[in-house]
């Protein structure tokens, strides 16, 4: 690749650009660093001062959290809810998206449109009806209730995302498999799904994050402390009169850790998702 090289910008321009970007980086990173600082400080006060870097390293806050009566139970709740939501959501979204992408059936357009419309309303708007539904089903205070709500709200977006990706997979591949004697299910399972790994990774991450981070619905539907998810428990540290900032910050770090881990794990696929698609090329 030897195209004409862009001339290096003049120093003032370069410095200006760097200053601009650096200031945005600071604005973005500052609160995060503050949380880190508070988490490692053995106090419950709000961190003040300009220095966002930790000055002391104490694990007291984490120890307190681990020792809290329901912490491990709540962690497990979060994991179960997020994992099952992801598994169910991705599986259903894959099959639905494939149908929308490849088959022509009555109600196809209307279905897609309905999915789109549901995305236009904020989830909180559905809170009361959902509460009623879960109540009728006897699923309030049950993890299954949360899984049900989370999957149904995540699926439309997942379907759209996956359908878009499936649309880019050449039909020739499927027809070729058909000629090779594959059934529709075999084609889906052995050709389409393996080729869609990047898109599925992104979709799974999205589902997982939605379920893992969600607070408002969980706080509304779960009243027993033992059935809380972590975000709901976190909020407990913010009281009416006092806020346990240290515990809150440590909890926030713990909650974001799995999501970050997933990001790193799926990184390769996420990047692949952007560049994949050229099958013939």
């Amino acid at each position, binding site marked *: 690749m030897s195209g004409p090289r862009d001339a290096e910008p003049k120093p003032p321009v370069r410095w200006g650009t760097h200053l601009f970007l650096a200031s945005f980086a600071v604005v973005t990173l500052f609160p995060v660093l503050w949380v880190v600082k508070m988490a490692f400080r053995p106090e419950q006060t709000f961190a003040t001062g300009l220095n966002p870097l930790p000055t002391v390293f104490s694990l007291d806050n984490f120890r307190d959290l681990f020792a809290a009566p329901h912490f491990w139970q709540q962690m497990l709740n979060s994991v179960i809810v997020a994992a099952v939501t992801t598994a169910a959501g991705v599986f259903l979204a894959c099959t639905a998206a494939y149908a929308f992408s490849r088959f022509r059936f009555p109600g196809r357009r209307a279905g897609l449109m309905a999915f789109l419309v549901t995305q236009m309303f904020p989830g909180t708007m559905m809170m009361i009806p959902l509460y009623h539904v879960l109540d009728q089903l006897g699923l309030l205070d049950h993890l299954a209730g949360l899984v049900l709500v989370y999957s149904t709200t995540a699926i439309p977006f997942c379907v759209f995302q996956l359908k878009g990706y499936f649309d880019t997979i050449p039909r020739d591949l499927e027809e070729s498999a058909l000629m*090779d004697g594959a059934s529709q299910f075999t084609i889906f399972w052995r050709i389409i799904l393996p080729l869609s790994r990047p898109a599925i990774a992104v979709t799974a991450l999205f589902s997982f994050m939605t379920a893992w981070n969600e607070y408002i619905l969980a706080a509304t539907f779960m009243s027993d402390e033992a059935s809380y998810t972590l975000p709901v428990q976190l909020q407990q540290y913010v009281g009416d009169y006092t806020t346990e900032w240290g515990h809150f910050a440590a909890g926030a770090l713990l909650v974001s850790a799995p999501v970050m881990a997933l990001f790193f794990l799926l990184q390769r696929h996420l990047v692949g998702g952007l560049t994949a698609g050229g099958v013939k090329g």
Partner: protein
Amino acid sequence: MARVELEAVGKRYPNGFEAVHAFDIDIADGEFIVLVGPSGCGKSTTLRMVAGLETISSGALRIDGRRVNDLPPKARDVAMVFQSYALYPHMTVFENMAFGLRLQKLPVAEIEARVRSVAERLGIEGLLDRKPKEMSGGQRQRVAMGRAIVRRPRVFLFDEPLSNLDAKLRLQMRVEISRLHESLGATSLYVTHDQVEAMTLADRIVLMKDGFVQQIGAPLELYARPVNTFVATFVGSPSMNLLPGMVQGDRVVGAGFSLPLPAGVAATAGQAVLAGVRPEHLRRAEGAGALTGAVDVVEPMGNESFVHCVAGEHRVVARWPGFVAPARGEAVALEADPAHVHLFDAATQARL
């Protein structure tokens, strides 16, 4: 291998568009049929109907005497090579070739043996562990053919398999397909828009236009006796010269030319016709010739040159053998042997 019969096979889409009109052909066991025509002529649709990828709207498709209209592709026992190769990107060459055999639940040892022997035959045994993206276009093309061959189907279908290759490779693969067909002896249907591929590969050519079969016949038959002007100009390169004129006695006379009438032609005096002469049948005349033109463009090919002339309101192309060709602007007199003059009705475009 198999005999394939198409009896008035037609394709009509739900929107009413008729892509293929009553297609009739009886393909003998081991025959190589090439469907050729401009894009949108229905050749690919016909192939896909035989494959089972497209439903058949009317008529009957029989393989070895059995009606297969409503059978899914896998029950028809046909294999297809796609223009895009359609190799499974996430599988190695071996897995690509073994995919169909595994679905048939053949023993592992047999799959291994079959894939290896076909790979050897195609010269791709060194590529078996590669993924499609790690191969060149020509190699992918071979794998795509190998995947079809390894299944030992009753009928081979090719959908423009060489269109994505560069010119040199296309030539090479064309010869290879010819050789493969020789050795496999498999009934084959081959779709292309390239008349050279059609001429060189086919036992019989089916020339299509707008969903209608124009002519079915051996390559040289289409070349020597085209049934209409479409076939006449589609087959052969450069195209046949067509000159509008009128029958006068034993000649066709038009603006600036007078060609001898071929023997045994059913034309009446005064009839408006199109006289067709292929470039290779126009030669330099000793005397006045049949027409005189000024040389406009000369295309040297090495062993011959194509000389484009302007004769009055017509343009004609003549093939000049050897290394010497007239210069641009030079006036040349051309004549044609009556045996090589084709005559078509000006109104119906049909051969007279």
